[in-house]
């Protein structure tokens, strides 16, 4: 690509840059890295949510009682933000009803309940011998068909992301392998064993999004993954950047800063500065979808925590209940106090262990009081400023906290509440046990509510005014009509 490209990213040296703030919590990663990735056994029932991510739900294509085959499309994305859903194994659809799924809001979703027949009969797959012969539009369609979403956490549909980056002509593709959060080792394990496939996926993604450069960013303390990647990257145009280990170096905005030194504009996304960020798990899924023709029916999930006898990474079928995975790992029930979905910092508490794995579930932590003691009582903020030192967005969490408590909307906005990425570094270091992230979330939600109400009241106000105007006009018309009639009568 020429040097006078729209974003001028080609002159930028890709090397580790300093990111703002950050913390270095104990990582607890070694226990789940001891064994290789294991394919998880097929459970008695798979619960497949129609909404695997923060988007709209897919439309089910099967009825209760239908027999389905492995890789068969069972729910289709009829909307832009929905994801295709495929049967992870062969079996019978036994119910389509709502069930709790792991997510931020602990909500229930409509789910397809699949009872496996343990035969694992699959439909024929369309393997593509040379993806390079395909057009980009075809490849995007294949990615969309495979139902792939960002497997790092947020779960934005990959096809949509690719389309957007084609539109803006992205110049740099960053494959995010930082995995900075404690406990999670899914990406690290994946790279250790499937580095070649990941690189192949990255090359496909680079071809699709037309980026002139592609790099894989990883924390440098992941020695085995780094050496596996370095070996796989021989004879590849893709380069490797080793970042210092720091949470949240793997956040989307942070990895852009950590690799390019540039910042994503406030309220924007990496494509706004010509960068596309994809997770390594996503790259692997893309490789599987394009080269092997396999839709996204499984993912690599870390199972860890003190109550598990053999913590490890599983290649787990989407829809497998969490409790089943815990049992496979050998759970010590008396130690178990609950489960966390995600890492120990941004993860959320799982309300029900029967909840299934979804496409964005990268880690499941079995909780114990020894590892996760009850948080101390919230104390007064002493304005020590530790939070401001670690904030990766360079906010002043102590000031935001004070304004959040007094519901001062103007100051919250001018202090950058909406630039908060909710990484939780501030709450991690807070010596007074203040759940800062929750204050910010609550403020954001109340703002959204307030804004909606304001819009609503403006709408009704304008309706009322038009109504008044119409009444007045009608009356005037009637009067004038009467007058003319009167005049006519007089004449």
């Amino acid at each position, binding site marked *: 690509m020429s040097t006078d490209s729209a974003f001028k990213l080609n002159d930028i040296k890709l090397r580790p840059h300093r990111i703002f703030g950050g913390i270095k919590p104990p990582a607890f990663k070694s226990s789940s890295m001891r064994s290789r990735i294991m394919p998880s056994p097929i459970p008695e029932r798979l619960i497949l949510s129609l909404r695997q991510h923060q988007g709209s739900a897919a439309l089910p294509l099967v009825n209760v009682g239908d027999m389905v085959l492995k890789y068969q499309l069972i729910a289709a994305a009829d909307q832009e933000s929905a994801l295709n859903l495929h049967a992870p194994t062969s079996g019978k659809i036994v119910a389509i009803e709502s069930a709790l799924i792991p997510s931020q809001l602990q909500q229930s979703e409509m789910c397809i309940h699949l009872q496996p027949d343990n035969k694992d009969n699959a439909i024929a797959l369309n393997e593509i011998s040379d993806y390079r012969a395909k057009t980009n539009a075809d490849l995007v369609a294949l990615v969309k068909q495979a139902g792939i979403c960002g497997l790092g956490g947020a779960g934005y549909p990959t096809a949509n992301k690719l389309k957007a980056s084609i539109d803006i002509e992205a110049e740099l593709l960053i494959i995010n392998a930082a995995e900075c959060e404690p406990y999670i080792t899914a990406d690290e394990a994946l790279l250790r064993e499937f580095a070649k496939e990941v690189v192949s996926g990255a090359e496909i993604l680079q071809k699709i999004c037309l980026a002139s450069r592609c790099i894989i960013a990883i924390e440098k303390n992941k020695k085995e993954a780094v050496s596996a990647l370095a070996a796989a990257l021989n004879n590849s145009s893709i380069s490797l950047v080793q970042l210092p280990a720091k949470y949240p170096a793997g956040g989307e905005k942070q990895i852009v800063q950590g690799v390019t030194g540039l910042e994503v504009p406030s*309220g924007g996304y990496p494509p706004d500065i010509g960068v596309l960020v994809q997770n390594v798990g996503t790259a692997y899924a893309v490789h599987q979808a394009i080269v092997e023709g396999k839709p996204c029916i499984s993912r690599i999930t870390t199972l860890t925590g003190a109550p598990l006898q053999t913590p490890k990474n599983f290649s787990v079928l989407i829809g497998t209940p969490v409790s089943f995975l815990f049992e496979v790992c050998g759970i010590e029930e008396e130690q178990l106090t609950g489960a966390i979905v995600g890492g120990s910092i941004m993860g959320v508490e799982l309300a029900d262990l029967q909840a299934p794995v979804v496409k964005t579930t990268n880690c499941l932590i079995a909780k114990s009081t020894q590892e996760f003691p009850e948080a101390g009582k919230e104390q*007064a903020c002493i304005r020590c400023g530790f939070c401001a030192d670690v904030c990766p967005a*360079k*906010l*002043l969490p102590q*000031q935001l906290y004070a304004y959040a408590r007094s519901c001062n909307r103007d100051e919250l906005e001018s202090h950058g509440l909406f630039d908060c990425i909710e990484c939780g570094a501030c709450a991690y270091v807070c010596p007074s046990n203040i759940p800062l992230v929750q204050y910010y979330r609550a403020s954001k939600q109340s703002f959204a509510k307030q804004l909606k109400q304001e819009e609503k009241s403006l709408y009704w106000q304008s309706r009322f005014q038009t109504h008044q105007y119409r009444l007045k006009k009608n009356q005037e018309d009637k009067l004038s009509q009467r007058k003319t009639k009167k005049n006519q009568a007089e004449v």
Partner: protein
Amino acid sequence: MTEALAKSSPMQLGKLKTQHIMLLVIAALLPGISVATWFFGWGLIINIGLACCFAISCEALALYVQKKPIKAALNDNSAIVTAFLFAITIPPGSTWWLVLFGIAFAILIAKHAYGGLGQNPFNPAMCGYLFLLLTFPLQMTSWHIPIEQGTLSPIGWEGFKQSILAVFPFLFASAESMVTTIDGMTMATPLIVSKMAGTNALLEANEAGLALFLRSSETGWELMNIAYMLGGLSLLAFGIIRWHIPLSIIVTVAVVSTLFYSPNSSAVFGTPYLHLFGSATMVGAFFIATDPVSAATTTKGRIFYGIIIGLSIYGIRVWGSYLDSIAIAVLFGNFCAPIFDYYCRPRVYGHTKRSLFARVTGSKP
């Protein structure tokens, strides 16, 4: 907040808590307190003990009156830190009622009348100190050192007895014995000496042979300041305080006192060394000005805050009518801190830099 929100991230938390921070601050004070006791006697230790008792009682009373949980709030150790800071700034061996008045003002008025820990705009210990300085100026400007048979004996048994009697005068057998003992124990601080010399002009300065201004006459003050400085540096090393406030205060005091110092002129301002090590500057810079609740909380704001305090320390000492000025200077810094914080916000990730003019006038960039 809803329950669902209250249960969310982060699940893993750091280990350093408020009560640990407070204990570390006290631990960092100990070297300085030991040196001060070695040179100035048991009065300081007795005062600290007394101040802690009064502070805990006052805190408990304030919490009780406000119907707040007493035990949980006392556990944060913040009242004890206030007591320590207050006790090391007042003259050692101060009378019990002096300590009581000061602590009561600090805890009840300066801290709890504003809403308790985290809400007080001014440093409580310094409010207590200033309250005493304004109401009991005589008692607050004389330092007592125990004397045994005509020589200084700060930590001997006799000294201990005298310190006890100084703190609890009602234990004296008669009013007569009280007068003689107290008389023998009063001395001036190096700053007072320097200031008196300044007002008495050149003659006295010459008489003292200028040595007075080249170096503090009391090694006790020097060593005490060095000990407090080391304690403060250990707080820096532990990451309890940041370097911005102490460094900007010390640099400001050093620079200003160097600028105004001229050894041969009649205007006697004291050497930079006297200002840094012959007074309470180190305690002020490392322990008092860094009280996070009342200090500036942004990085740039902390530097301005330190500069304001450094300038005030020097200005009040040299041109003001008070002898030492840490309390007034810190309170002055406290007044300015919110403004500094408001206008010294760091540039948020993904935002373009706004000029100071734009920030002050509120115009969009």
